[in-house]
């Protein structure tokens, strides 16, 4: 290829690379202006109604703002330092991490299981609809409903009571060890419908041939699943994981409603912690700092997703 490269250099010298580049840039500029015209309405609305509040909050997180008293002295990193030293924040952070982990793990495995179960099953559409149904309801309504499932005289205890000689009166939402798992169960109940639907669509889009090839190669159903289906599903799985991570990070309504009577409610998650600080204690600046931390993580995860997705797509293309 050496003569070719030499030739190219002569060619480029003859026609002037700089000129070509300038023309290319001008073209990109035109494209960009065109692009801007399409994005303008969305940008305008999003900037005015979402980004400005975000900026405002970021600014707030560096002040001592207290809504009522109008104190907005600049405070530097004080709120953030306070965040690190607050024991409740630590607990909330730990719980959120637990939430993220659980909201990835459980809906994904449950959703995948359901997707595999319902794939090519007679009457699957109705079963799928029923599993998806909770997703349509307001989260607060779901919370209230499940409150009664978990109540000491609630449904869960009644069902469990069938299997024991003594009446069961566990307060699922009142015990430190139980409250988070209980709410997570509700979360799974609510969210694995969407995960299942997304995975089903992903499964349906898989090429059939490699799966059959694996069968010919002597793989048993489980091995086909493990070695072929799962890796091929990776792009869908990644997207679902990211969506679950984001959902886990920002989950609020369920916790707020179902944890209402749990004394340590504010430590249930970062979002709840933030709400507590802002609305109950009027610590707006401090809450803003919490929100900035949450927002930062969410943005980082989104960014990571854009990076990973390209890579995973390339892997299974």
């Amino acid at each position: 290829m050496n003569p070719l490269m030499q030739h190219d250099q002569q060619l480029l010298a003859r026609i002037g690379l700089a000129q070509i580049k300038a023309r290319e840039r001008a073209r990109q500029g035109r494209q960009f202006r065109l692009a801007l015209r399409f994005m303008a309405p969305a940008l305008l609305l999003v900037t005015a109604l979402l980004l400005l509040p975000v900026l405002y909050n970021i600014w707030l997180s560096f002040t001592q703002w207290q809504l009522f008293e109008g104190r907005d002295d600049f405070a530097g990193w004080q709120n953030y330092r306070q965040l690190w030293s607050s024991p409740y924040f630590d607990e909330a952070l730990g719980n959120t991490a637990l939430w993220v982990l659980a909201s990835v793990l459980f809906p994904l495995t449950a959703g995948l299981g359901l997707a595999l179960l319902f794939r090519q099953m007679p009457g699957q559409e109705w079963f799928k609809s029923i599993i998806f149904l909770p997703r349509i309801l307001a989260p607060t309504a779901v919370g209230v409903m499940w409150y009664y499932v978990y109540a000491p005289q609630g449904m869960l205890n009644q069902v469990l009571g069938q299997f024991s000689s003594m009446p069961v009166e566990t307060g699922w939402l009142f015990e430190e060890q139980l409250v988070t798992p209980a709410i997570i169960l509700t979360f799974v109940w609510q969210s694995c419908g969407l995960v299942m639907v997304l995975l089903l669509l992903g499964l349906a889009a898989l090429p059939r041939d490699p799966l059959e090839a694996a069968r010919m190669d002597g793989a048993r159903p489980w091995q086909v699943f493990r070695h072929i289906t799962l890796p091929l599903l990776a792009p869908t799985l990644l997207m679902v994981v990211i969506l679950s991570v984001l959902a886990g990070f920002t989950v609020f309504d369920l916790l707020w409603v179902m944890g209402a009577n749990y004394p340590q409610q504010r430590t249930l998650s970062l979002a709840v912690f933030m709400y507590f600080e802002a609305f109950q204690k009027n610590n707006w600046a401090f809450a803003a700092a919490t929100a900035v931390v949450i927002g930062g993580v969410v943005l980082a995860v989104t960014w990571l997703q854009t990076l990973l997705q390209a890579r995973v797509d390339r892997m299974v293309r």
Partner: protein
Amino acid sequence: MQNLSSQQAKWLALPPPASPPRWGKALCGLALALLWLLPFSYVLLAIFKSTAEYAATAPLSLPEGVSPLLENIRMAWQQGDMAQAMLNSSLYAAVGASLAVLLAAMGAYPLARMQFRHRNLWFLLLFAGTVFPFQMYLIPLFFGFQWAELLDTHLGMCLLYTAICIPFPLLVLRNYMQNLSLEIDQAARLDGASEFILFWRIILPNLRGPMSAVFLLQFTWIWNDMLFSSVLGNSPETRSIMNALLVFQGSYAQSGPNIMLTAAVLASLPTLLLFVLLRRQFMQGLRV
């Protein structure tokens, strides 16, 4: 020919090949579906009880009859001021979701199909709007709405819901647009289509599935929201259905959970109905 059709008839009458036990699967599915519906039983029991009956009996005991339901509905509907609220919510959800999906599609179009620098950053900028927990938006929005005289107006609520519903459809539609063949664009350009016509008549019609899916999801999101409505549009004229429900809940949760639950069921009915009718669109448009 005669001979042939009898031969075919014989083949067609062959017993179907022994397939793996589908019955077991179906039964499994049925059990799961029932399990999934179980939590609703409490609600279903409660709405058939009169207030006094509810107070006197255990939450999970069977109702004595079905007649109190009508009275409960009447009470919930009238006292919860639900007619106006339903109208408001329909307006917000329809306008907000459709505008949001449209604007998101417009925004996604160049992000997916044009070449310019820092495309990912522009995407992230548009997406970054919803990274905070929503509660944090309330105060700045309140100030802004007050300044712009948008508090307690239909216009303000529609604008807000539109904005907040843009990022998710943007993400989904961008994915879809990236997968559409680029040659279609080129064919259309050669056919003399301007960028706008290309977008409107070539790209959009090919995204009906995902667009209706995100529309429905955003519609239900707006319908179910109570946070923004309860602070930014709280007057009875602009109150959303979920906010009305919450206000109403304040008055009856103490004494009449039955009526409150009836109201909740009424408030969820439109989206449930929408789901039952359009479940395919809900569930099939969303490849990610």
